[in-house]
């Protein structure tokens, strides 16, 4: 696989009182920009695509200057050849799926390989209004790929889909990542998506990059807790399978000697699966043996307490895994939780979701 071209983003753009100030170099195949809505990540992508013009700075793609305020260079979007997948899809409603995909495709080409990769063959003659949300997003991705772009820009391509659908689309994104040898700039507010796809993640808040690095590393560090709060995420863990029982409908995972039961999922013994647990789905108990229906009790130590206006955020260390837990101030006071205390995390099996296949 060829090395990804280096992409240099160094520009400023103000919109009203909001200022986007970006300075970074992308060198990996998939770079994710993570941030809450309003953090400026869509503005960033619009500047890279050429839809918006920055106030000042430069954008360089593999040595080619796309935008430079100093030398007054500003390539229009149609000359940049960046495939853009929008959150809302923005398929052309008056064109069929086939016509949508062909819209940006160079002349006299065979039907795009993206049609097969995204399994769209049976929908080609339909109109966008006749498709489900997930199918529409797949068409949007195929349309951006068919133009044979130099880079793929994805603005929350999964945000308008429900969780079940997201998990079905993520494998397609993996196929895209493998089948098309171009860099991808992926924008999301969901850590799970960034972890599933990205080689490097940039955390963006109030128009600035506040942290960057390999996505697992970015989350595993204790400093990830504010990030977890910022991005509204769940806990994400990569755990090996110890037992899988289809008849009983459960799969057991191992977390450093302790066992974690999740709803049955197709996986080999020993295979590592990514799972997500929402911070508010974890109950904290001071006793290990409770007569309750929840299937999982993990022993851990409170590493850090963070009292916020809406709730208390607790970082619990289970061996070397960090779990972010969100509880009420009342619960914190009644249980007299403090740093260093040994506690038990009670988690219902059904509150644990496998992230992607």
């Amino acid at each position, binding site marked *: 696989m060829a090395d990804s071209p280096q992409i240099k983003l160094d520009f400023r753009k103000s919109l009203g009182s909001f200022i986007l100030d970006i300075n970074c170099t992308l060198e990996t195949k998939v770079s994710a920009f993570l941030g809450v809505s309003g953090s400026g990540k869509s503005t960033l992508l619009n500047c890279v695509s050429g839809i918006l013009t920055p106030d000042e700075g430069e954008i360089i793609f593999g040595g080619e200057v796309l935008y430079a305020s100093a030398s007054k260079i500003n390539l229009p*979007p*149609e000359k940049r050849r960046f495939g853009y997948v929008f959150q809302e899809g*923005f398929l*052309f409603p008056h064109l069929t799926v086939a016509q949508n995909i062909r*819209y940006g495709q160079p002349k006299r080409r065979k039907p795009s390989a993206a049609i097969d990769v995204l399994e769209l063959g049976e929908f080609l003659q339909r109109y966008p209004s006749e498709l489900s949300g997930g199918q529409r997003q797949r068409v949007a991705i195929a349309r951006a790929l068919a133009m044979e772009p130099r880079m793929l820009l994805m603005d929350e391509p999964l945000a308008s889909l429900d969780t079940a659908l997201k998990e079905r689309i993520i494998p397609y994104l993996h196929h895209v990542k493998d089948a098309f040898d171009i860099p991808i700039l992926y924008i999301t507010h969901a850590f799970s998506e960034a972890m599933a796809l990205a080689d490097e993640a940039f955390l963006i808040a109030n128009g600035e990059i506040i942290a960057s690095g390999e996505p697992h590393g970015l989350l595993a560090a204790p400093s990830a807790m504010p990030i977890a709060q910022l991005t509204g995420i769940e806990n994400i863990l990569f755990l090996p399978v110890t037992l899988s029982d289809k008849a009983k409908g459960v799969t057991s995972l191992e977390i450093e000697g302790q066992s974690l039961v999740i709803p049955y999922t197709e996986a080999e013994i020993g295979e590592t699966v990514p799972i997500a647990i929402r911070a508010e789905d974890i109950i904290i108990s001071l006793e290990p043996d409770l007569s309750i229906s929840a299937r999982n009790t993990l022993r851990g130590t409170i590493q850090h307490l963070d009292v916020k206006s809406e709730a208390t955020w607790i970082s619990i260390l289970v061996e070397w895994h960090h779990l972010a837990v969100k509880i009420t101030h009342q619960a914190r006071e009644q249980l007299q939780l403090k740093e260093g205390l040994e506690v038990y995390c009670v988690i219902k099996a059904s509150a644990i979701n496998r992230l992607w296949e």
Partner: protein
Amino acid sequence: MRITPAEVAALALSIKVALLSLVFTFPIGLFVGWLLAKRTFPGKSFLNTLVLCPLVLPPIVSGYLLLILLGRNGLIGGFIYQVFGIEIVFSELAVVIAVSIISFPLLVRGIVTGMESVPLELENAARTLGASPIKVFWTITLPMAYRGVIGGTILGFSKSLGEFGATIMVAGNIPGKTQTMALAIFSAVHLGEDVSVYRLVFISTIVAFVALWLTERFTLR
């Protein structure tokens, strides 16, 4: 009770003038409509007001202004008379100009409404797919705005067919030359030719009804 040659001539002239006017105004209307719907530029509200003016001015006033402008001593008419030796006023060309000015706002309003309904995001998406602004116009903006464009065209065309006030001011009421349907009805009423009036009114009503019905069909889902 048969329709007279003069009535046929008036009907034919009305249709001919309305079609000619459409040929001239449609491309300009597309451009102006696109400017007003999709662009921001200094003087935009002035252009919008200028285009809409004939809609609110009494047609007689528009006609009078045109007469001043196009007459042999007028700014435009004088120039053309001196260079080409052609007098515009009281000619078929004057009828075409008069109905064009009066019908133009209706045409443009339809086009603007249609084009404003096309989301900018779709046009931007097309740009990122490699389409130049001109290709975006022909493949996204215009096809998606077609209801408004067709609606404006039919309304403007019907207005041209029946225009009276501006036409009589700038082109007169010369049978066989500048006498359109509306002017023929006016003359027939004045001369007390009731049967002729009934026939012309009947034909006009049918034409107007069909045009409106077509508009509804194309602009409503």
